[in-house]
Structure formats: structure tokens, C-alpha cells
């Protein structure tokens, strides 16, 4: 159905200018096409992965020069030069990705900007290779290539236009496939919340490197296409402004979508042409449009159209009744394999210091399979720090944490997640603009190493295998959200978001589940429902650590209570004893002073 649309549209676009026969329009459309590929590439790194990159123009230049030089100097066929140029650009993207991994936000923007400046300088000053300011001239048309009986001859502007259209379609299909692939979902998860993605088992370092490479790969293709059409390359075509220009196209169109780059590239390429009549005011009008767009439609033209048309994924619905389902069979299998006698999770003499401050001091506790352990304590007692230590957000200063007798302290969060410990967050960290089902799917991926090539090869680009689909459904039924599967996470009510976090955490098939204040902000009805869910999870043999201030819940659902105060364990035992323990009472209510506080004389 969608493919039919695309095919029809492609045909119209391909034929239109041939029918008009106007060289000028054709040239504008070729530029639009090249820019679409370029922006689709930038969309991978900014729109999908959420990393601000300001050097798409540099990769564009690398691709263009590489393709032109491979053909003129090395004497390769265009049909080899184009993919090679794309790979060279991708390699540059990978190389840039390595230092960029450590950086976020404006620091990342700076380093990519620096890369754009350096690339420009290299193109200018490596005269033996690039001929500097004189530029490369007389770049040839693609050579004729025979594919079986068909001869690919693209040696006129009309033919070249068709080549551009064909590659734009390939780029669009590639982007669509990427979005639905496991890698694509992982990238979206990184964009939404990098820490949560890592904790759900996504290898964020590898994924970001792949995103940088893919982004540059698209730019390389666009560069090659540009070189053999324009026939002349000079360094100034690929300066910093070009990178900014590509960014503007993405922002105006709408990052993170497929239609956005098409709209953005179209508008930003065509608008200056239309405004030629008012040449003096061209930049002014263009700037005003940009400011207006950023102020009023930060999601770009795509968001504007969504607002006008309405989008089911982002509309809220009333809350229907929610059934409590069963824990999926796959989960139960995973949990029962744990040995009943030995503790599932053993935290021994664990200490965490931040500078001079000891947030957790030599704390020891254990968790058994099928147990709910309430981990409580006053504000600042070290509960969340403890969860962060167990889930690997930071390593302990001292002590060991063992899962099934194997030490896990010091592993990366994604490795700990894969080992069988999953968690939720005090402040909800869902992938807000992914659907409910996609949130679970990110965590579900069993191999978790992105296998884009493999998925494309087996034709499974449409998404998950059927088993995964049924597991997602089962998990959503467990928390009563099956009917919301296609809605974006941000449209859920607060209580539903908390429940979705639990479903997502369960999707990693954990043996230990760490819940950080799952009842915070929940209504009494929601808390009762949560309690049902907790008991079902416990029944499946998973060990649960419940950090919670809702004492009514924690005291009545936990088998055992561990109380922390000022980073030390002050109690470990049954809930009813905890409520009577003088130490616990003192931690919560304060000490009875031996002498009253008075004003000194």
C-alpha cells in the first residue's frame, strides 16, 4: 500500500520535468534530490539518535572529492567510485564518532564544527590532491556500464535526473528500513534517553558510532552525485555554511521523520529560487521563516501538518479498564533456572564515595529468587545510590556485587542488564516519543547487537519476529497496557507510564528487578493495581527490590525490609518488626532529644 504510493509518486516525479523539458527546473530538482539524501543522512544522527552534528557539509565534500578523484585520477568506473566515496565518507564519520562519543550537547556541536572547519582547510590546502582554490574541473559524466543486457548510460542532464531520483528512493527506503530495524529502535531510544537505553541493554557506544557512519555514508552518496553533475568542485562549496544549511533543512522539515527531510530539502532549496525576484530581501525573508519555524513549530513542517491533521499516536484517550495478565512464559523460564538455595543477588560490604562524602557505607544484603525486598530509608539515606550501584550506573568504591555468585560490579550498565538485572527509575525515563510497544521492543532484542545488515538480508526489515510480537503483547497485558500499544509513551497517564517502565524492564528478561519508587504519584486505585502486578512478578520467581516511600504498599507487599540511614544499613528483617524497631523510628521521626532545644542565654 505504502510502497504503491511511493512507486506512483516516484514515477510522477521522474517524468514531470522530462515532460516540461525545462533545464532550469530540472537543475533545481536535481539539487533538491541531492539535498534530500544529504538531509536524510543528517536525520540519522540528529533526528534519530539525538546527537547534534554540524559537519554534514564536510562529509558531503569528502564524498564529492573522493568520487571525482577516484574517477579522474585512479581511473575507476563511476559505478565503483560512488560506493567507494560513500564508504570513505562513512569511514570519516566513524573516525569522528570515536572522540565524539565522550561528548554531548554543545561540546559535541563544537567538535563537529571543528571537523567541518578542518575538512574545509584540507580541501583548500592539500593542493597536490584537490588543486586548492582552482578546484577540480571537467569531472566526467558516469561511464557506461552494462548490467546483463541493459546498458546504464547516464550521460545527459535528463538521464542524470533519473539517477538522482532512483538514489533518493533508495535512500528513503533505506531510512524506512533503518527506522524499523533493531538498530533504528536503539538509536531512537538513545535520542529519548541515553541512560535508560544503556540500562535496557543497548550498546550505546556502538550504536552511536554506527549512526555517525551511516549519516556520513548518505552524505558521501550525495557528494558523489553532486560532483558528476556539477562537474566543478571548489573547497568553498563545502564550508561551514553548507553544514549549517543542511541543518536548517532538517530543522525546517522536521527532524526524526522521513517526510521532514524531503519537505525541508525541498523548501530550503526552492525558496531562494522563488525569492530571486526580491533578491535584496531574500536572506531577510529566509531568516524570518527560520526564526518563526523554530519558535512556533520546533518539530518543523511535519509537526505543523500533524497538528492540522491530528495524529492518533499523540492523542490522549480515556483510561479504560485494565486487565492484569500473566507473566510471559519466556520470563518464567528465565527466573526459575536460578538456584533456590543460593542468594540470587548478593551485595557485600559495598561502599560508594562521592569525593569525601560516603553515600553508602559498607552495606551488605541479599535477595532471593521470588522475594520482594523493601529497601527504605529517609531522604538522602542512599537508596537510589544503592540501585545505581547494582545496575552499574556507577561502580562501587569498595565491595562486591554478585548475581548468582558471579561478580558484576564494574561492568557497563548494558552488560549488567544483559546479565539479568533490570530497573525502573524514580523520575520516569521512558522513550517518550516511541510507542508503548516500541518502548518494550527496545529492551526485548535478545542479541542486542544491532544486526542491520542481517535483518535487511533476511528481509525482516519490517520489524520484529512474531515471537517478539507476542511477548510484547503478553508484557503489556501484564501491566494492563495492551490496548495502548500504538500510542506514544508521552500520551500515557502518569500511572500508566510507571507501569510501562515495569513492562520495559521485564522485557530484558531479568532475574532481578529493581524498582525505584514505582508508586510515587500514583492514585490509590493505581497503587492497588501496581500491587497486583508486583505479586504476579514475584510469583514468576523474579527477585524484586522495591525502593518506595509509599509505606502502606511497601510494608504490606514486602517479605523483608532493609532500612538505610545515612548510607548505613540499620535494619534487615520482617516488615512488622521494622515498624516497631526503635532505630527505624528514630531514622524516620528523628531522635528524642535528651535535652530540649532552647535559646542560649
Amino acid at each position, binding site marked *: 500500500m505504502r510502497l504503491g504510493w511511493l512507486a506512483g509518486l516516484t514515477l510522477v516525479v521522474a517524468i514531470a520535468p522530462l515532460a516540461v523539458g525545462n533545464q532550469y527546473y530540472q537543475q533545481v530538482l536535481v539539487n533538491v534530490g541531492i539535498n534530500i539524501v544529504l538531509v536524510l543522512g543528517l536525520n540519522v544522527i540528529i533526528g534519530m539518535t539525538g546527537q547534534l552534528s554540524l559537519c554534514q557539509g564536510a562529509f558531503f565534500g569528502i564524498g564529492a572529492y573522493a568520487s571525482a578523484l577516484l574517477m579522474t585520477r585512479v581511473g575507476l568506473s563511476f559505478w565503483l567510485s560512488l560506493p567507494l566515496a560513500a564508504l570513505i565518507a562513512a569511514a570519516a564519520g566513524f573516525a569522528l564518532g570515536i572522540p565524539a562519543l565522550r561528548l554531548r550537547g554543545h561540546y559535541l556541536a563544537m567538535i563537529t564544527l571543528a571537523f567541518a572547519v578542518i575538512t574545509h582547510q584540507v580541501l583548500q590546502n592539500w593542493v597536490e590532491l584537490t588543486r586548492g582554490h582552482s578546484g577540480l574541473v571537467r569531472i566526467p559524466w558516469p561511464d557506461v556500464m552494462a548490467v546483463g543486457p541493459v546498458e546504464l548510460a547516464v550521460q545527459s542532464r535528463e538521464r542524470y535526473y533519473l539517477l538522482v531520483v532512483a538514489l533518493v528512493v533508495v535512500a528513503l527506503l533505506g531510512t524506512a528500513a533503518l527506522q524499523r530495524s533493531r538498530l533504528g529502535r536503539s538509536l531512537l531510544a538513545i535520542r529519548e534517553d541515553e541512560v535508560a537505553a544503556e540500562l535496557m541493554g543497548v550498546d550505546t557506544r556502538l550504536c552511536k558510532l554506527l549512526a555517525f557512519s551511516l549519516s556520513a555514508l548518505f552524505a558521501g552518496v550525495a557528494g558523489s552525485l553532486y560532483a558528476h553533475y556539477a562537474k566543478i568542485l571548489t573547497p568553498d562549496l563545502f564550508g561551514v555554511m553548507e553544514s549549517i544549511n543542511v541543518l536548517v533543512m532538517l530543522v525546517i522539515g522536521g527532524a526524526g521523520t522521513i517526510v521532514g527531510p524531503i519537505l525541508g530539502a525541498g523548501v530550503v532549496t526552492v525558496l531562494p529560487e522563488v525569492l530571486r525576484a526580491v533578491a535584496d530581501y531574500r536572506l531577510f525573508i529566509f531568516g524570518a521563516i527560520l526564526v518563526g519555524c523554530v519558535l512556533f513549530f520546533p518539530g518543523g513542517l511535519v509537526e505543523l501538518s500533524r497538528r492540522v491533521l491530528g495524529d492518533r499516536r499523540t492523542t490522549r484517550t480515556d483510561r479504560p479498564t485494565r486487565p492484569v495478565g500473566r507473566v510471559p512464559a519466556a520470563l518464567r523460564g528465565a527466573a526459575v533456572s536460578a538456584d533456590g538455595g543460593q542468594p540470587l543477588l548478593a551485595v557485600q560490604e559495598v561502599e560508594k564515595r562521592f569525593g569525601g562524602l560516603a553515600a553508602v557505607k559498607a552495606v551488605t544484603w541479599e535477595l532471593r529468587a521470588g522475594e520482594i525486598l523493601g529497601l527504605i530509608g529517609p531522604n538522602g539515606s542512599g537508596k537510589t545510590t544503592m540501585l545505581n550501584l547494582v545496575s552499574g550506573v556507577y561502580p562501587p568504591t569498595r565491595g562486591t556485587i554478585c548475581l548468582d555468585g558471579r561478580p558484576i560490579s564494574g561492568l557497563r550498565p548494558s552488560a549488567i542488564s544483559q546479565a539479568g538485572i533490570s530497573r525502573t527509575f524514580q523520575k520516569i525515563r521512558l522513550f517518550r516519543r516511541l510507542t508503548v510497544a516500541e518502548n518494550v521492543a527496545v529492551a526485548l532484542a535478545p542479541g542486542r547487537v544491532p544486526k542491520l545488515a542481517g535483518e535487511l538480508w533476511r528481509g525482516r526489515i519490517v520489524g520484529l519476529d512474531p515471537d517478539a510480537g507476542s511477548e510484547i503483547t503478553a508484557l503489556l497485558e501484564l501491566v494492563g497496557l495492551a490496548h495502548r500499544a500504538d500510542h506514544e509513551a508521552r500520551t500515557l*497517564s502518569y500511572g500508566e507510564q510507571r507501569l510501562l517502565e515495569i513492562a520495559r524492564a521485564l522485557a530484558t528478561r531479568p532475574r532481578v528487578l529493581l524498582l525505584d519508587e514505582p508508586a510515587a*504519584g500514583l492514585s490509590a486505585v493505581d497503587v492497588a493495581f501496581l500491587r497486583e502486578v508486583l505479586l504476579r512478578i514475584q510469583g514468576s520467581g523474579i527477585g524484586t527490590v522495591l525502593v518506595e516511600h*509509599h509505606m502502606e504498599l511497601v*510494608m*504490606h507487599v*514486602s517479605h523483608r525490609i532493609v532500612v538505610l540511614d545515612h548510607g548505613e544499613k540499620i535494619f534487615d528483617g520482617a516488615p512488622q518488626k521494622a*515498624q516497631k524497631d526503635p532505630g527505624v523510628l528514630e531514622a*524516620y521521626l*528523628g531522635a528524642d*532529644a535528651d535535652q530540649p532545644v532552647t535559646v542560649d542565654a
Partner: protein
Amino acid sequence: MLEIRDVSINYDRVQAVRSVSLDVVPGEIVTLIGGNGAGKTTTLRCISGLIRPAGGTIRFEGAPLERRRPAEIVRLGVSHVPEGRRVFPRLTVAENLDLGAYGENTGTAEQRREAVFTLFPVLRERVTQLAATLSGGEQQMLAVGRALMAGPRLLLLDEPSLGLAPIVVRGLFQALLRIRQSGVTMLLVEQNARLALQVADRAYVLERGEIVCSGAAAAVAADERIVRAYLGSEVKTVEASRG
């Protein structure tokens, strides 16, 4: 002096406070206590204009506060000592205090700074130090001192004892009593209930966004409901261990 009527507050899509009413009379120390997540901080933030209430009225000396911006509320005479102190870490003690007197003339600021130094002599010794280099207790004194620089008639204190050693807390609470003697009224949010009840005249106990008990501090201290508010209702059977 402060009159809160049926205030409800939604915070991050959650109804954090439900129909709370409370009064503070001039010269009193009133404490608002309760477990974590009870809505104490949210209530204070609402009084000082950092969050808008979803419903209800807040009046200070007769003037409605619900629609005012935080800076206006400070000028009306209500100062807020936020949870976690929030001193400006890379400014000196003197600069922190001066910022508290934002908009006042230099003479007034000078007088108030002297008053703060009399109250907390240690701040005078540290006057040129960066706030980040102070101990936790000294930072809390600085936060209180900074709030006093605006010359408030009502001081809102959010968990001043948080993270401080008992001996330091004791000194701080003695200072609060002296501040009261100088004519400043206080609304004190505390997790350390027993301590707060010692210095307060009256108390309100919040449990999950609702006031569950209130009255004279001594009476509240003896009330069973306060334990429930912190530790939940009594567990009679071990119902969960059936698994």
C-alpha cells in the same frame, strides 16, 4: 498572617497536594511534617510562587499570592530557604548575602548583614570564602542568612536539617528560635518530626498530599497517627510471604 484554603497542587501530572488548608499566625513557628513524597516541599514551593496551585487560595496579610511571581512574593515579605540549601557555590559568602538583599538600598543591606553575622558569627569569619567551600551546616546558615537579607516577615524553611550532623542541627534550630524572637514568623517543613515538634508551636501532618492531623505541637507529638504517616499502617500478618 498566612491563610491557605483548600489548595490543590498538580505536579508533573500528579495531584501532589489535595485540598490543604493551614494558617500561620504572626510570631508562631508552624511545622509541616510528613514522610517523603507527602507534599511538604510542593506546598512551600506553591506559597513562594514557584508552582501555581490547581485550586484554592493563598493569602499573605490579606494579599492573594496564587497569581504572583516569586520575586513579587519576596518583596511582599515572604522568603524561602529551599531544600538542599541552593547557595550560589562559586560566589563568596558576602556575594551570596548581597544577592539576598537584591533591590534593597546599601544601608539597609549593611544593617541586615550585621544582623546575620550576629546570628551566625561563623559566616563573618568566612565572608570572603566561596560558598562551595563551606561545610554543610555553614551552607545552611548561609541559606537562612541570605533569606533574612530580604527582610522577610514570614520565613519558609524546607528541611533545614537535611544531611546535617545532630550537633549542627541543634545549633541551627537554636538560631531559628532566636530569629523568632526578632519577630520573624516561620513555616518549617521537616522530615525530622521530633525535632521540629520541639521548636514549633503548632503542627500539621501531611500524608500523601492530605493533612491527616493538626494541632498544638505537643499534642501532635503524642498522636499515634504520626507514626502511621511515616511508616504505614501496622502489618499484622505476613501476607506477602505466601509466594
